[in-house]
């Protein structure tokens, strides 16, 4: 059964023939033919909106192609429902989390494939369900962290992702498709996942893998297919590649001169000063300053409490103590509106759930926090407002249609709308929470440039990120958060990834779980 790696086309397990997919106004895929060989890890890379997820939706029966066909084992196959794909041995882990929050971990893992009890085909065996769940979590090295009886809604994003992977593994399918599975995982969790994928390949499973983390892709994949603008650009043996640069060039269609722009060098006075910020059981005694023109990084493991600190600073979550000053003046922030009035801006980590009203147009989203500036006699001057929005979109090199619902844009363009919304408020303190999650390299470079531009214009910028490389290249200073406290402060001269990791794990050594983690487990 297990194939040799030097196989030709007859070794194809899954193939597409001249697939096309049209959405109103957009051609997401055109004339796409590619071959996935039995037993290989095949990676799919491309910019945001290149059509990766669309292709995957077609292969998993979630969307029907407008043209072309899919071949399984050389035979044309009709994948018209997700059930049909599953029955044919194709299991997919989608880009968006697909968890039923009210159900337990075990119930989520066996969802759609519940073990029948001896009492009858339609009766579910709870015991077997738990056994399957435990086995899968064991296989994923997460048995001690995730309780099969816990409610899925109480899990962190990373753990939810692991539950989804467990669900796919439980099906023991010959073909597994993963769409950006590591986007919301910490490095440790991502490493665990990659180990599992290597093991599955060794056992003969075919894997189609999508990720924007190119080093990860280079380390894992046997072959890589590059998509651009819905077209197949090239399929390469990983071994023939010299480095990520070549891959990036194929993806964006031009050489990318620099990913990280030079740091801003004109630092001013202290702009934002937080002292003694505490929220019981979540974080305590958080103190830091940011200067005008400075980029301050927050590093840490997933669940360390960085998001919750920023939400408290911004007034989105309550706090139990502490003081926030801006330009020396003490701020009373009770709600995000107060923070915005004081010139703060917060780009949340989850675009879809916290950043955008996806059903409203790009215009409306861009203008959401700054409509007051465009009112004439109590009424909104839309013409004026839309001009401002259009100008901002151009400045951000937004590539999409502002008049269409925000949800129809690709991830990178959506992120630009969120950033643009805050730039329109003329804030001078920007808090970016995971600003490049799920974003392609091209867009990443643009967002890094935006961050440096803001700093150059005298804004104070805070960047929370789980990608340490990003912080090391972007920031003037990095604070490491672990278990709800600041463990370390690293100035630019002493930047060192090992020091970050050491500090990030320090809190974990002291108490097995951080306060945020603990609170979640209690639920």
């Amino acid at each position: 059964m297990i194939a040799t790696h030097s196989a030709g086309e007859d070794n194809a397990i899954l193939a597409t023939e001249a697939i096309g997919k049209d959405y109103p106004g957009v051609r997401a895929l055109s004339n796409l033919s590619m071959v996935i060989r039995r037993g290989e890890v095949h990676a799919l890379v491309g910019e945001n909106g290149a059509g990766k997820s669309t292709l995957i939706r077609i292969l998993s029966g979630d969307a029907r192609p407008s043209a072309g066909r899919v071949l399984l084992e050389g035979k044309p196959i009709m994948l018209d429902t997700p059930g049909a794909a599953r029955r044919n041995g194709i299991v997919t882990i989608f880009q968006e989390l697909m968890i039923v929050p009210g159900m337990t971990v075990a119930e989520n893992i066996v969802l759609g494939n519940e073990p029948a009890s001896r009492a009858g085909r339609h009766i579910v065996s709870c015991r077997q369900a738990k056994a399957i769940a435990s086995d899968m979590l064991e296989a994923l090295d997460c048995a001690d962290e995730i309780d099969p009886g816990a409610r899925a809604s109480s899990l962190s994003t990373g753990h939810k992702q692991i539950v989804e992977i467990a669900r796919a593994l439980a099906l023991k399918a010959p073909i597994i498709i993963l769409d950006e599975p590591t986007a919301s995982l910490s490095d440790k969790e991502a490493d665990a996942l990659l180990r599992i994928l290597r093991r599955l390949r060794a056992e003969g499973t075919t894997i189609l893998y999508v990720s924007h983390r190119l080093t990860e892709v280079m380390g894992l994949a046997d072959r890589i297919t590059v998509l651009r603008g819905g077209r197949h650009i090239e399929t390469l043996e990983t071994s023939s590649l010299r480095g990520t640069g070549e891959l990036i060039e194929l993806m964006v269609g031009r050489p990318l001169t620099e990913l990280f722009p030079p740091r801003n060098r004109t630092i001013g006075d202290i702009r934002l000063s937080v002292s003694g910020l505490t929220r019981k059981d979540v974080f305590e005694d958080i103190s830091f300053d940011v200067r005008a023109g400075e980029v301050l990084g927050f590093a840490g493991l997933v669940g360390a409490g960085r998001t919750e600190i920023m939400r408290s600073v911004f007034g989105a979550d309550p706090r139990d103590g502490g003081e926030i000053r801006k330009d020396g003046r003490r701020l009373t922030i009770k709600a995000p509106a107060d923070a915005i009035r004081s010139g703060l801006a917060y780009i949340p980590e989850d675009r879809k759930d916290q950043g955008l009203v996806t059903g409203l147009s790009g215009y409306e989203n861009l203008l959401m926090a700054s409509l007051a500036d465009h009112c004439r006699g109590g009424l909104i001057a839309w013409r004026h407002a839309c001009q401002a929005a259009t100008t901002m979109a151009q400045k951000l090199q937004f590539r999409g249609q502002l008049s269409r619902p925000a949800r129809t844009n690709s991830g990178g363009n959506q992120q630009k709308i969120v950033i643009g919304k805050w730039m329109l408020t003329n804030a001078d303190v920007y808090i970016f929470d995971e600003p490049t999650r799920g974003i392609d390299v091209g867009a990443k470079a643009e967002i890094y440039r935006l961050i440096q531009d803001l700093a150059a214009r005298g804004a104070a910028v805070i960047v929370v990120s789980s990608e340490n490389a990003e912080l090391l290249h972007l920031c003037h200073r990095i604070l490491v958060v672990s278990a709800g406290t600041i463990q370390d402060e690293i100035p630019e001269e002493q930047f060192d990834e090992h020091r970050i990791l050491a500090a990030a794990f320090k809190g974990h050594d002291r108490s097995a779980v951080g306060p945020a983690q603990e609170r979640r487990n209690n639920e």
Partner: protein
Amino acid sequence: MQSYGERLHVFDREEWKAGFGRIVRERAMEIALPVVTLGLVIVFSLLSDVFLTGSNFRNIGIAAAALAAVAFGQTFVILTAGLDLSVGSTVALVSVVLAFVMREFGLVPGIVAGLLCGAVVGIVNGLIITRFRISAFITTLAMLSVTAGLALNLAGGVPILGLPPAFGRVAYQYWLGLPIPVLVAGVTLVIAELTLRYTRLGRHICAVGGNEEAARLSGIHVERVRVIAYAICGVTAAIGAIILTARVSSGQPTLGATLPLESIAAVVLGGVSLAGGRGSIVNVAFGVAFISILANGLNLLNISSYTQMMIIGLSLIAAVALDQANIRRKQGH
């Protein structure tokens, strides 16, 4: 300086540039209901000789005016992904309060008291929903019971008479050929549509309905916006109550029992999703027209009331299904 008219059309002009075909496609949903309503009018005109007369249309207008006012307020609430089942008994309560005050203190104090009463019920609804985090369905269902009981208690179960005759006459007077109730509903429509499109409040209502968390993080006071939406709904219910009370020139503690479900149906017919977020008052007005014309036409055709109930139900499904099919075609499914 740009004129007001220019600003009103900023979106349309951009769309015109993109070509007429696209407008039709994009606006298909908004065109579907007017077309269906026009179809109804044609069918009824062919079947009944009195249907297509000025006096019948004035009749329809007067009968639809109260439902229209209530549906416009309901739209605000539904746009925040809420729901107000208490509008019917709010109408009854306002009718009673208005009648009492008007009898004692005259026309204007009565109307003011009525509007205030509606606003108070709406605010109470909003506060319960936001403070106790109870679903809008249950809160307004409970308030339906509370306000209905209050109205009956106040009135002692019987209609309240002795309103100024001028008040009752207003319901049957015309201005520029239009019945006063229709004018009142028309003014409500214009104010509501402008509020929704051209004020911050209106945009905030849509944002809260579309994604509450994103709205909150954008500095919108979500709870305040919600409470205001319910208050607006209460005020339009009061406007509906004033129209109805004038028509029956007495305070009626049982008025408006069918309004909650009818107004929600009108809003949904108008293409507003019950999940909140997007919608236009003008479309809701077509929803009201559809319901009112259907009821009027069936009655003119002398169709048995039991059969009418069946036809109305089926038409409701057909009209919304058509809308949905349109939306889906638009989205390319």
